[in-house]
């Protein structure tokens, strides 16, 4: 007799308990009793015959106005056909039939619409045009929702928002004044540029909703116009220019700007960088409050903790010993999780710690999923703020001393040679808490990266040495931000802020070449918009307002670099790609400086200009010995001269953010990254969708290779096409995934481009099966290449889920390969693509 039998015996008495109660709470029990009478019968005895046979012909749906009518196939086909105009590969009947097959008797037309959208979306992997169909069906669904609330135009949408108290007066008045022109400028067809994923994201999270009914009160085009009006500086011409740029998906401001532009709480900035709390209880608790206030309005937080004393340090007030950083960070972790960014997304923060802090080892364990949970922070991201001295000692296999900041408070505010001297002096003075092998700590840092993706490697000295803001002593960068692309000075009085926006490079290719003239125009509009945000912005804390007025930094970035390479048929790691990417960065930097200088001439330089390197005529690429400029030196020299004369409106201009969500909206690959796979799913709060490399599909269609077999093969190989012999080698080279590219190429790209990036870039690195030897080589190379910051280390799971939807022979779950086997499987499939035992 096995253990469960006894339970079954005891329980036989209670079988009569109504099942339906388990599934419903009291408030909905009445409604559900009519909706599913069969459920309550379950307890009656006839346990298994519960649902009436499925017969679509007799089914009825409930319309939005409450009336019921029978399901009409022709009507659904007509609706789908209307949206499928120009989509020649789409079969409307197929979508309609599948939709009807999934409906149940008594469903609402709303459910019917939702189902047809999902049905179309699910076919995207087979034919990308179904994704566009899904997007159009969704667009008309949104239109119905908006117009169903008596909102027929853009100006009505804004007026309604103002009545409801979610739109601010500035926007309301501007729109009221220019209503006709703005309404005329709305281009409903522009919504067709969205892919399904992008539009879904916009609908689920970005469109303004009625505070009680939760229905959206703006269409996607009203949304873009709202952002343009709010950030257009009150000029109609600039507003319409900006709207055109947005609706063409050529440039997208950061999420906080999209969420909040023109609203009652206009917090438009993406990133906040907070200096470390001072080494006191009061300061630590004040910092929690700052973090919570900033998180509330959709900002990502970077926070240093390097000034706080380490474990075992004496506390004079109580004559006890400190428990170190971990308990404080545990509290921070809970605080960050508690603050939900207006229900839009969870708060997020990254804690930076200098490599000499005596709690560094405990810090590196904060994200482990084993060990004492009281010493784990599952919500915090972690980053290492690494001095060059550490990397040098790693290279020389030297010792590394760890200090309690209470005994060496000066180290936090020093960098470069001053830091090196002070650090060695502290060692000589015997102040170290402990001394360990530098390589041991380095290996530990890398292990944390490999096991958690966290513990980002950022290089303190390089960040300070190349920054426009650090010309004077006392102006020190103490950390980067949540995504490691922002580098700005902080102090106890200054909280750094940055406003971001990204140019979609995918939409700057014309007739088989990159269009630098279009890029220049985009940069000009984007930069003026970003600069305006500084004045418009609502600052949740005073130290942020103070810093932003002094420095006026902005972060203009890019996305869709991979799209450019696909469009131009360049392999990611080719010399041409690297040169083009650097050239694009140079042009953006040039035109951004030019625009900021023009703004300074008109409105005045930012108040901190005299403290910057630019005031001395130094620009970013002066710090990069290997920089290769493509714009003539004479142009650069003329620009330098103008900057010396007029100054700059903004101390910092360029930062390449990860663009995770806005790249989805724009339908392009993220920031500067290679593709992760030719076929992958995206998980977001709005559900999971299949994303497919549409460039590859086009190429394969041209070659007559877009077949069920090829699709299955791509799926089986997790989105790789390297093992598919039928695909020409040249295409296979272009369509490699990031797992198949040498990471050296990513670092070389970043270094070549870095000469024109005055802040930094969110540089992810990828290793399928990381090991310490490879990682230590990779990060040492990155440091030597002059990379300022790196971001996640991405790896892949060691075992995989069984594939459920593939053809027969491949359905078996392969035994999870160990690291060497996985590598040999790749090699094998490259050499022997037809048949490979290791891959089955």
């Amino acid at each position, binding site marked *: 007799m096995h253990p469960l039998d006894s339970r079954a015996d*005891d329980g036989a008495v209670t079988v009569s308990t109504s099942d339906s109660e388990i599934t*419903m709470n009291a408030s909905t029990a009445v409604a559900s009793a009519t909706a599913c009478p069969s459920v309550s019968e379950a307890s009656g005895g006839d346990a*298994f015959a519960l649902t009436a046979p499925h017969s679509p012909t007799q089914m009825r749906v409930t319309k939005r106005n409450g009336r019921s009518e029978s399901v009409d196939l022709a009507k659904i086909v007509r609706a789908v056909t209307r949206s499928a105009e120009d989509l020649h590969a789409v079969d409307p009947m197929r979508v309609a039939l599948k939709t009807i097959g999934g409906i149940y008797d008594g469903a609402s037309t709303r459910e019917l619409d939702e189902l047809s959208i*999902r049905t179309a979306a699910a076919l995207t992997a087979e034919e990308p045009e179904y994704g566009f169909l899904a997007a159009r069906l969704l667009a008309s669904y949104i239109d119905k929702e908006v117009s169903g609330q008596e909102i027929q135009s853009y100006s009505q949408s804004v007026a309604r928002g103002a009545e409801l108290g979610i739109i601010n007066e500035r926007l309301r008045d501007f729109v009221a004044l220019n209503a006709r022109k703005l309404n005329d400028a709305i281009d409903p067809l522009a919504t067709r540029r969205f892919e399904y994923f992008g539009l879904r994201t916009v609908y689920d999270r970005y469109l303004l909703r009625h505070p009680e009914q939760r229905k959206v009160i703006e269409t996607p085009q009203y949304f873009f116009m709202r952002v343009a009006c709010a950030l257009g500086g009150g000029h109609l011409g600039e507003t319409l220019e900006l709207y055109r740029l947005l609706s063409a998906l050529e440039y997208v401001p950061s999420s906080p700007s999209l969420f909040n532009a023109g609203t009652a709480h206009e917090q438009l900035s993406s990133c906040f960088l907070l200096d470390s709390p001072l080494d006191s209880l009061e300061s630590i608790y004040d910092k929690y409050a700052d973090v919570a206030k900033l998180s509330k309005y959709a900002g990502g937080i970077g926070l240093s903790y390097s000034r706080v004393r380490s474990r075992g340090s004496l506390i004079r007030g109580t004559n006890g010993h400190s428990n170190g950083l971990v308990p404080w960070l545990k509290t921070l972790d809970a605080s960050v999780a508690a603050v939900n960014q207006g229900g839009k997304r969870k708060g997020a923060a990254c804690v930076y710690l200098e490599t000499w802090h005596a709690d560094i080892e405990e810090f590196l364990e904060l994200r482990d999923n084993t060990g004492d949970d009281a010493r784990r922070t599952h919500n915090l991201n972690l980053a290492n703020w690494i001095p060059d001295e550490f990397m040098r000692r790693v290279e020389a296999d030297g010792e590394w001393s760890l200090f309690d900041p209470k005994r060496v408070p000066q180290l936090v505010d020093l960098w470069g040679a001053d830091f090196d001297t002070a650090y060695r002096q502290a060692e000589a003075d015997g102040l170290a808490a402990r001394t360990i092998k530098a390589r041991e700590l380095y290996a530990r840092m*890398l292990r944390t990266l490999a096991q958690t993706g966290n513990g980002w490697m950022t290089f303190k000295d390089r960040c300070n040495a190349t920054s426009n803001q650090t010309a004077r002593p006392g102006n020190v960068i103490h950390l980067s931000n949540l995504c490691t692309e922002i580098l700005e000075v902080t102090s106890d009085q200054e909280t750094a802020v940055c406003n971001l926006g990204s140019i979609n490079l995918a939409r700057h290719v014309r007739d088989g070449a990159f269009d630098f003239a279009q890029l220049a125009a985009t940069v000009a509009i984007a930069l003026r918009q970003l600069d305006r945000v500084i004045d418009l912005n609502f600052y949740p804390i005073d130290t942020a307002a103070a810093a932003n007025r002094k420095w006026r930094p902005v972060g203009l970035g890019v996305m869709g670099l991979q799209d450019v390479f696909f469009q131009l048929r360049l392999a990611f790691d080719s010399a041409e790609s690297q040169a083009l990417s650097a050239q694009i960065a140079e042009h953006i930097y040039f035109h951004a400086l030019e625009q900021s200088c023009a703004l300074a001439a008109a409105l005045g330089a930012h108040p901190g200009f005299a403290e910057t390197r630019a005031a001395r005529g130094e620009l970013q690429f002066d710090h990069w010995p290997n920089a290769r400029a493509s714009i003539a030196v004479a142009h650069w020299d003329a620009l330098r001269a103008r900057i010396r004369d007029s100054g700059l409106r903004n101390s910092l201009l360029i930062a390449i953010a990860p663009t995770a969500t806005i790249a989805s909206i724009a339908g392009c690959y993220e920031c500067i990254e290679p593709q992760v796979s030719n076929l992958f*799913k995206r998980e977001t709060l709005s559900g999971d969708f299949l994303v497919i490399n549409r460039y590859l599909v086009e190429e394969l269609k041209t070659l007559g290779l877009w077949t069920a077999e090829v699709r299955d093969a791509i799926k089986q190989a997790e989105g790789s096409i390297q093992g598919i012999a039928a695909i020409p080698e040249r295409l296979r080279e272009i369509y490699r995934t990031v797992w198949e590219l040498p990471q050296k190429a990513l670092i070389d790209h970043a270094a070549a481009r870095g000469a024109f990036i005055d802040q930094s870039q969110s540089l992810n690195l990828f290793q399928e099966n990381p090991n310490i030897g490879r990682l230590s080589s990779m990060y040492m190379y990155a440091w030597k290449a002059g990379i300022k910051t790196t971001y996640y280390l991405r790896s892949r799971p060691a075992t995989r889920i069984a594939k459920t939807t593939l053809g027969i022979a491949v*359905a078996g779950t392969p035994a999870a390969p160990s690291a060497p086997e996985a590598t040999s499987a790749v090699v094998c499939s490259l050499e022997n693509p037809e048949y490979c035992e290791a891959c089955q």
Partner: protein
Amino acid sequence: MSAQPPFKKQHLLDPGFELTLRPMRYPQFYEMYRAAIRNTWTVEEVDFAPDVNDLKSKMSPAERHLVHRLIAFFATGDSIVSNNLVLNLYTHINAPEARMYLSRQLYEEALHVQFYLTLLDTYLPDPEERNRAFAAIENIPSIRRKAEFCFRWIDSVQDLKRLETRAQRRQFLLNLICFACCIEGLFFFAAFAYVYFLRSRGLLHGLASGTNWVFRDESGHMAFAFEAIRCVREEEPGLFDADMQGQVVEMLEEAIQCEIAFAEDVLGGGVAGISPRDMRQYLEYCADQRFAQLGMPRQYGASNPFDFMQLQDVQEVTNFFERRVSAYQVGVQGEVGFDEAF
């Protein structure tokens, strides 16, 4: 317990408790054990907060019914698998490296039970409701029927202390096939399909992300079982004869029947986008895959009706603002060096 002398050629189902690891007879099981360890996850990493909101405000009573039934099934299902593992598999699969894998599997099953326990506690705050759900086997006929199916197969080998005869080995093999093909390969696969269906609609991400990890583990368990079956057949080719194949076909058909009854219960309230009819087709499709894995002809010729299942076949890219990435590895090896290619 007595170790066999190592010089005698041994088979996987020979009775006893072999202790010798070198030379290793089945290194594949050891590799599976190591791979499983690299994929360690914990329930604490799963964020259930959005689920509670979904259940309260986004889902219809019929959908909530579906969810509660599912969780109730999972919570008991994994316990049943654990019991069979301890009572039967661990006893009879006689290779220390295979038992290492089974020990790891046992831990994973406990982890899954913990996951679903935490889910039920979170989803059902009312203690009365909670108790009823935990007593799923007694209270819910459609779950009871599945459980009885499992018990019958556990009981079928309960009296076997040692596998001495060919008939006994066949008896055991049928138990192994039942757990791999029917319980993990059909019952769990169907349950995962409901979860992925909900996720494809943007619902219950906590459940879905945990289920992702559970699914990954279960995929490993099935891979182990099929590999064990393959080894046994290789070692004793005549064992898997026509008679036995007939029994396997019957067994899978009965499992499908149980699962269909469950589908009619869980979908009883009417859920747009998924019907018992689709589920039957999906089960037949899965069953065909199991037959193929056993090297048998397909019985149903069904195709996959669930487009949303494609989603879980492809790799995930998670935006860290939104969800925890589940792809990192534990147990990274190696020494610091500066001249490796990367």
